[in-house]
């Protein structure tokens, strides 16, 4: 396993979000993390990307503690789209996407042909070319989300962590982003995404990680882990699990209001 966390304690100051957390990301998988709000999904992702230092335990990347790498070396292997990046003022989209190349640049290698190609690819894949000259702080939430995705893609890492990449997007753009992730996955990258929609998760994930209260309750292919009991236990939501007629993956149908009231 290239990316592995062992015995993590994750906390903000004294607020402990997770303890004794072990997670391994299967190489070449499209892993989707699901779980209720505030259960620690973003926190886990931040720890995996060494944005948050664990209070104890360690994250290993390619067999070495991630904290022991030079910072650029990690950034060439692992990229992440944070949940709510700070929106910078006075910068146009193309310039921002170009900053995604920082880890590949040096003082005298500031803008190689590879940099240029990577930025062009990232913008093409995310459909942001038409926005190239627009100011980032003047974009809609959905446009901005695709720009940030382009920044992460420009980094050209073989492991990509995405925290809620489909928020702010309308239905067709959600599927565009998910399809893009699936394409990247097919090209051999390891994708780890936090998603809220369980049906999207089941359709796209090769592997699910189900979290609650800072703990991993289940990990495995959606068809194996996604059961009505699990959904009820994790989300406190009675439901039926059926087969998605389009993809033959599990499909979660929440119980009706009347049935939920009857069960309560």
């Amino acid at each position, binding site marked *: 396993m290239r990316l592995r966390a062992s015995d993590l304690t994750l906390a903000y100051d004294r607020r402990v979000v997770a303890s004794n957390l072990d997670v391994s990301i299967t190489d070449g998988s499209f892993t989707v993390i699901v779980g209720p709000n505030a259960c620690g999904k973003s926190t886990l992702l931040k720890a995996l990307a060494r944005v948050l230092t664990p209070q104890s335990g360690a994250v290993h990347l390619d067999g070495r503690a991630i904290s022991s790498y030079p910072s650029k070396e990690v950034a*060439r292997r692992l990229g992440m789209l*944070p949940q709510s990046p700070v929106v*910078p003022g*006075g910068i*146009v989209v193309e310039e921002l996407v*170009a900053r995604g190349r*920082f880890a590949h640049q040096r003082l005298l*290698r500031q803008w190689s042909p590879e940099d240029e190609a990577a930025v062009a690819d990232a913008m093409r894949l995310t459909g942001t070319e038409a926005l190239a000259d627009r100011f980032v702080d003047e974009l809609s939430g959905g446009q901005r989300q695709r720009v940030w995705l382009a920044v992460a893609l420009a980094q050209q890492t073989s492991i990509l962590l995405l925290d809620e990449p489909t928020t702010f997007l309308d239905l067709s753009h959600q599927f565009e982003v998910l399809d893009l992730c699936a394409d990247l996955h097919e090209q051999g990258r390891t994708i780890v995404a936090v998603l809220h929609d369980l049906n999207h998760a089941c359709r796209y994930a090769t592997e699910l990680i189900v979290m609650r209260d800072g703990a991993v309750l289940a990990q495995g292919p959606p068809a194996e882990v996604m059961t009505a009991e699990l959904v009820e236990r994790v989300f406190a939501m009675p439901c039926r699990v059926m087969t998605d007629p389009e993809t033959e993956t599990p499909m979660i149908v929440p119980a009706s209001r009347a049935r939920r009231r009857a069960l309560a």
Partner: protein
Amino acid sequence: MKAGSKVRAVRYGPVSLRLHPRALAVGAALLLVALAVALVNLTSGDFPLPASDVLRSLVGQGDAGTDFIVLELRLPRVLLTLLVGAALGAGGAVFQSLTRNPLGSPDFVGITVGAATGALVVMLILGGGGVQVATGAVIGCVATSVGIYLLAFRRGAQPFRLVLMGVGVSALLEAFNSYLIYRGRLDEAMAAQVWQIGSVNGRTWTEVTIVGVAVAVLLPIALYYGRQLTMLSLGDEMAVLHGVPVERSRIVLALAAVGLAAGATAAAGPIAFVALAAPPLAARLTRSPGAGILPAAMMGAALLTAGDWAAQHTLPGDDIPVGIITAALGGVYLTWLLIHERRTRG
């Protein structure tokens, strides 16, 4: 506002540079303006000299009389103006970028006030002068910066806390400085008060050397870390993700900026507003994102030389401290900034 300026790649073998032609052109134009005004300042004074004589002296072909006036009397002051302006502009650009705040410049967050405290302590309590005052200013500057950093430090120095702490510390030190002047002997208090305005009058090669060394050593360091600074403006999280050593970069950049401000203040006193106004003015002209340290330095040099020209010519027969001119210009700028911010915020 128009879209950002275009980028050009310059490649030669494995070397590739990412250049903003517009920023380069603006930087070069500002440098030319600064040098032209500097030349005018060399020609003017009690004994007006033709530019041709001044240039001849500068290249070592003048007569003894002109040489004395140009090289001994006027050149230190003119060089000092250029260097102090550049140091303030560059230091301001780094600070505003680090704090992500247009008011986060050394003169606003109390760093130059701390330098003044150091200088006043030397002048009024220890009875020192000259290089000792400059040393006091540097010590005061660095001590204040470290103090503000420690006060603002809570889970990493948050930019906004730094600015607020700086403004608070600045007010306290301001009061202390007033007290020092109040309790001083009249003649000493006068000298201290004039020093506090910020001036390049009657400065010698000693002061030129102080700020010259600061610029020669620290400006390249700041420029070297310029790309890291640009990444830091995306927020710490994004910077980490893209491989910026955040804490190290921030400390190196902050120390370089403090050093630049300290060198400038030690040499010329706390000259107001150049560090605050030069970076955004330069950025308006370059229309480039990023910290724009070099254009800000050039803008600082141009502003201060122009300010010094005005200081010599505003009141006939009186050579007022340049700090008065920059403070007046700064007041206008700050008013404009506040009105403009209100307007853009809607």
